[in-house]
């Protein structure tokens, strides 16, 4: 177990290192240099500037300096906003986290629930309906869901019935959080419900379900005590990738609903070509996801003692 945790931590660190190196080289490959301005800079001044910021050192040394800075928690200074990247992230992250967590929780609970319903009522209209919803959810991108919800439930309902059911933008009241969270969770909800249905059908065919049935347990007890507990395992494994999907989906959802979260800053900084901001947010996202994946991997071992973590390979 300890060996496994160590191994996972090692890979997590390696992944982050790769990401840091990637962002570093991206910054170096970009055209132009940091001191470009209106006036031409004399060569001696240029040399002095390069020396001051360590740009005259070899590439590898610069990379180590950059990694050192990142480890110290210094992500640089945003060119576009003229503020430290750390400040912006600290200010924007809570919004993104709030949105992401809401979407993730909603997607998991609803997805698991729909999956159970579809499996238990297999072959009925409920099954067809749920799976239709699931395939639509997988196929319709979140930015389309978001825009359509914003237009029909936000704008049209207000125009036609003159009631402000859901605000179109913002992130303050509970009502304003419903549409973005739902739009963000829709795709993940669909993935989870499909997975849950398959896994639930698999479990329901097992012998121990027959045993439970023949010893006279009620259907409720069989489903909740015996089937769901085992069927939910594959869902937990995909929570890592799902978190990634929710995170990247938030880029557009935050933009559509004007939520001042990190995704919005990320997209705006791409449009403004604010490189420090881009690499800073990228690293923050990467770190967050690597940690989320790590937690999911470890949690899996604790929840299902049958999984021998040391033997896990692909």
């Amino acid at each position: 177990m300890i060996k496994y945790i160590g191994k996972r931590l090692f890979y997590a660190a390696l992944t982050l290192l790769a990401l840091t190196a990637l962002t570093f080289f991206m910054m170096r490959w970009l055209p132009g240099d940091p001191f470009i301005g209106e006036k031409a800079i004399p060569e001696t001044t240029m040399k002095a500037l390069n020396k001051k910021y360590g740009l005259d050192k070899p590439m590898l040394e610069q990379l180590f300096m950059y990694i050192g800075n990142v480890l110290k928690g210094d992500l640089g200074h945003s060119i576009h906003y003229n503020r430290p990247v750390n400040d912006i992230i600290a200010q924007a992250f809570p919004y993104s986290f709030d949105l992401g967590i809401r979407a993730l929780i909603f997607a998991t609970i609803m997805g698991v629930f729909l999956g159970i319903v579809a499996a238990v009522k297999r072959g009925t209209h409920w099954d067809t309906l749920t799976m239709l919803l699931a395939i639509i959810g997988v196929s319709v991108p979140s930015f389309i869901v978001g825009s359509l919800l914003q237009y029909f439930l936000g704008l049209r309902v207000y125009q036609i019935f003159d009631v402000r059911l859901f605000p179109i933008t913002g992130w303050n009241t509970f009502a304003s959080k419903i549409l973005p969270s739902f739009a963000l969770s829709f795709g993940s909800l669909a993935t989870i419900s499909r997975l849950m249905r398959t896994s639930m059908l698999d479990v329901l065919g097992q012998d121990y379900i027959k045993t439970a049935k023949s010893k006279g347990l009620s259907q409720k007890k069989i489903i909740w005590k015996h089937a769901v507990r085992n069927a939910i395992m594959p869902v937990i494994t995909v929570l890592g990738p799902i978190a990634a999907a929710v995170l990247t989906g938030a880029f557009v959802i935050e933009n559509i609903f004007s939520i001042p979260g990190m995704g919005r800053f990320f997209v705006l900084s791409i449009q403004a070509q604010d490189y420090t901001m881009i690499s800073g947010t990228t690293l923050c996202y990467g770190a967050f996801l690597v940690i989320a994946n790590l937690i999911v991997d470890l949690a899996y071992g604790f929840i299902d003692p049958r999984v021998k973590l040391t033997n896990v390979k692909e």
Partner: protein
Amino acid sequence: MSKKNVKENKLNKINDLNNENITDMNNNSQEITPEKIDVSRFEWIGSNTTESETISRPSTSYWKDAMHRLRRNKAAMICLIIIGIIGILSIIIPIISPYTVSEQHVTHTYAKIGYTDPGDGHVHLFGTDSLGRDVFTRIWYGARISLFISFTAVFVNVIIGIIYGGIAGYIGGAVDNVMMRIIEIINGIPYLIIVILLMMIMPKGIMTIVVAYAAVAWTGMARLVRGQIMSLKQQDYVVAAKVMGAKPSRIIGKHLLPNTFSVVIVHITLSIPSAIFTEAFLSYIGLGVPVPYASWGTLANEGRQLFQMYPHLLIIPAICISLTMLSFNLLGDGLRDALDPKLRR
């Protein structure tokens, strides 16, 4: 039936497998009295050795069988037809359309669906956009770009994936271990972030999206091929080929890869919607196809800015993106069922 029996039956509905057992048991409870049958009513006709060995039906290959199963899947066939129609329209419409993609009609901008201009008699099936460009032409031109990007990207993925996965799976051991760790690290970072970073560095263009997407998305294919090769290379016929002195290139090309095709085809079909989504996503956040071109993503992005006044400008590309993704997803599901009946649910 007693109340308990009814309840039991209800319970059994949750499991189809058991339904059969229950009906069997009910039948058994009715008594069957054996009837005396006279032996003289039967006649020994002997065995016909030639007839018992004849093949009464034409033999079907694996692929014929799979195609037969696919043809019975209505949803998948409808999706195949939809994909065909979208493909054909995307080729034909930009050619036969009376308007070019960037032709502007300043006299009638923001025209509604099915608009006919009273002045010059121009018909705009899907209306026009902010610059008076014909949306119908642009949609099908966008389809060309979107489909071209996703097909090329997936094609590149498949090539890289097969080579990488094939090598890792065939050689195995330490090489495999290192190659898989590399994939693990790439998979640790959300692919959209890498694609966005790559898009930042490279010059804007259609091929940039293809390269950026292909640089990240091949890992799934490589893993799949590797797993297949790993299990296939232990089969007896591979050992037999080796014993007969076949070169590794022949074993891989002739014996291993053709047997992975079914899984690869399913993966391709399910990768295309993901490629379409990526292109649309990138264009939507302003990183995708550069201005003179139009893709479904850029059309949706243009539409979004005018959404509150002219919703059809977003809804039409949105439907196109969703319908195409939906068709490929359903077709992929159908193909998986057809090619691997064991997995069927």
